[in-house]
């Protein structure tokens, strides 16, 4: 399974396994779609364990973030994952990493 989705307090956490590539994006998409259907207010995409990420995987992460509409929010949690940083740097993608306060 490419990811697992769990509810922790106010957050829904999508915890990705080591691979998110063209070979498992369809399955990952199904799981994410099911999670998104519940319209979480706070979504954390945890990619700290990812070792293998390609453009299809990156596209799925971007798409997921785009599906979360305000006032709901989604962030990426990458920690110091070098593989994830390398891909993000190459594409010059700036990920949201912090939730903003509702009062902001």
């Amino acid at each position, binding site marked *: 399974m490419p990811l697992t989705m769990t509810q922790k307090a106010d957050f829904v956490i999508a915890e990705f396994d080591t691979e998110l590539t*063209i070979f498992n994006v369809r399955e990952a998409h199904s799981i994410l779609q099911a999670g998104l259907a519940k319209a979480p207010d706070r979504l954390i995409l945890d990619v700290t364990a990812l070792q293998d990420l390609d453009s299809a995987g990156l596209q799925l992460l971007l798409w997921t973030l785009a599906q979360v509409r305000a006032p709901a929010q989604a962030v990426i949690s990458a920690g110091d994952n070098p593989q994830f940083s390398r891909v993000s740097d190459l594409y010059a993608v700036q990920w949201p990493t912090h939730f903003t306060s509702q009062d902001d």
Partner: protein
Amino acid sequence: MDMTQARSLFIDEANSLLADMERFLLEIEAGDATSAQHIDAIFRAAHTIKGSAGLFGFDHIVAFTHNVESVLDKVRSGQLALDGDLINLMLQCQDHTASLIRQLEDESSGIDLVTGTALIKQLHLYLDPAPVVAAAPTAVLTDTEHWQLDVHYGEDVFRDGMDPLSQLHYLQSLGELQQVRLLPHWPAPAAFDPESCYLQLKFELASTASKQQIADVFEFVQDSSKVQISPPQQVKASLAALPTVDEKLGTLLVNAGAVTERELQSALSSQKEHDNNQALGQVLVDQGAVSSEMVAVALDKQKATEHKRPADFQFLKVEARKLDELINLVGELVTAGAGIDVLVQEIANEKLKESFSVLTGLLEQIRDGALGLRMVQVGESFSRLRRIVRDVSKELGKDIELTVEGADTELDKSMVEKLSDPLMHIVRNALDHGIESKELRLYKGKPAQGQLKLSACHEAGSVVIEIADDGAGLNIERIRAKAIEKNIISADQELAEEDIYKLIFAPGFSTAAAVTNLSGRGVGMDVVKRNIEELRGQIQISSVPDQGTVFRIRLPLTLAIIDGFLVSVAGTHLVLPLNMVQECIEFQMSQQDNERNYLDLRGEVLPFIRLRQLFELAGPPQNRENIVVVQYGKHRAGLVVDHLHGELQAVIKPLNTLFRSLRGIGGYTILGSGNVGLILDIPQLVQFATTLENQSFVH
């Protein structure tokens, strides 16, 4: 100079400028030239006509051309693109201006205000920016310091095993990636397929790599994605620094590394496949292959090349009347020279003979030079036909490609002018009735695009012009039936294939099922034949069903002076055009069967004519006669004459109208002795000889 003369000069100049304008517009439309190459000349034509018309107070011409000039000025300054629609409009404006000029010559015809007003309205759409909806190119590129890349990936890229990430990674080995922007184009949420690619990537690459090297990175996604690579300013500088060579725009851009071979081929195919009237440079800009600035630099380079060419377009305008006077005088000089030649032969002084032969040599050069002044390229007529083919094929909804060969073949100017109408008529007939509709062609297994070929070449002292189409060919049965219906031939009359084809030249003949406004009225083909015969020419037709028809027009090179061969029969001097004379042989009547006019010439049957009998010349035949073997086209015949006198230069004088009906005589000339020499019409005589012998064989 009186006003009438000045006005006539204006009309002449305007017509010439309009012809240039039409030619340049058609060249741009056909993709043979870019608008940048010709826009100055097109603008100058409109501007000059306007200016000159103003001098004469032709205000309606000034008003109209002012609008045309204003639009052209916008094209010149780069505010407007001379695309297919605008070329079309400009051609209509050119037509209308020509009609305004014609009206000056023939004041009985009115000014077409309706067309003029409609055209001005259309021109104003280009002048007033608001209503003009110009299709924006997919991306307008400008030159920057680095390579600019815009890659819109196709949806199948991931599924095809491609990853844009690896391309970015590889590009890092060629240089530094800058300003990378990832632009996803999301579909509706329900339509999102995670295995489809929705990414667009824009970035700059600081690299010394060539465009080809960069393009190679995207080789495997080229077919499924849209890849635009815009060169940096540095390439523009290297393009400007390239040595000036005579290259086409595409080659220049490829050589400079601004465009890849693939991009060039793609642009050329786009031009051809989509019947794209845009110039190549514009297509490349629209495809995002290159910036318009880069194209402008390349065009400037081309212009520089053209300026370096020898001034082969510098002409001196001379009144046709003055040229005719010169030719007449040269003709008189030739006649006077022939007179002196007779005296020189009588005096028999070697030194005098020698001096006179030098003079004769110079005289021949002057004659050829003077005649050469009247020679113009037959392409002048062909270029007018280009417009007709373009307009008529559009009107008929047919896709027809016109090929021109031998446009630089030269012919006497007066003949080119007189040839215009017959050629136009034959071409219109070929377009209208010869070449089938697209649907019918495809049904017959032919390519949808019809072919029309105009060619000219020199052949045995004549100019041969061919108009060949790959259409349905002439239908012998239909021609025959129509000729019987129109009482041109009787129902029981047997005719050879070639003679049946000739029936289409009969007055009032037309087999076209429907009369269109282009042709099919039965008026014209008889006039075509008459016009060509007036030029001492002949027209032949060959046709193969479903393969096409060829009209072959054979014309003499000039109407003024010829190299002739002088013979005599019963004291009458006759001149044969030397280029048609094959050989002279002795004719022994005793060896001949009096009933039949043919002889065995080294195993070949040679029909001959006894000119004494044909022209009913008095006196008994000489004991020793000669046969002059003449050839015209593929046909040969012999002419029986008394004496052979040798070569001479003959100034052709037309026969008085009273004698025009004489068969076999094309004109006359004054001989050195002062006698009159009749110039034989060899084509007529050859035809007569072969027909006569065929008839006597049948009976």
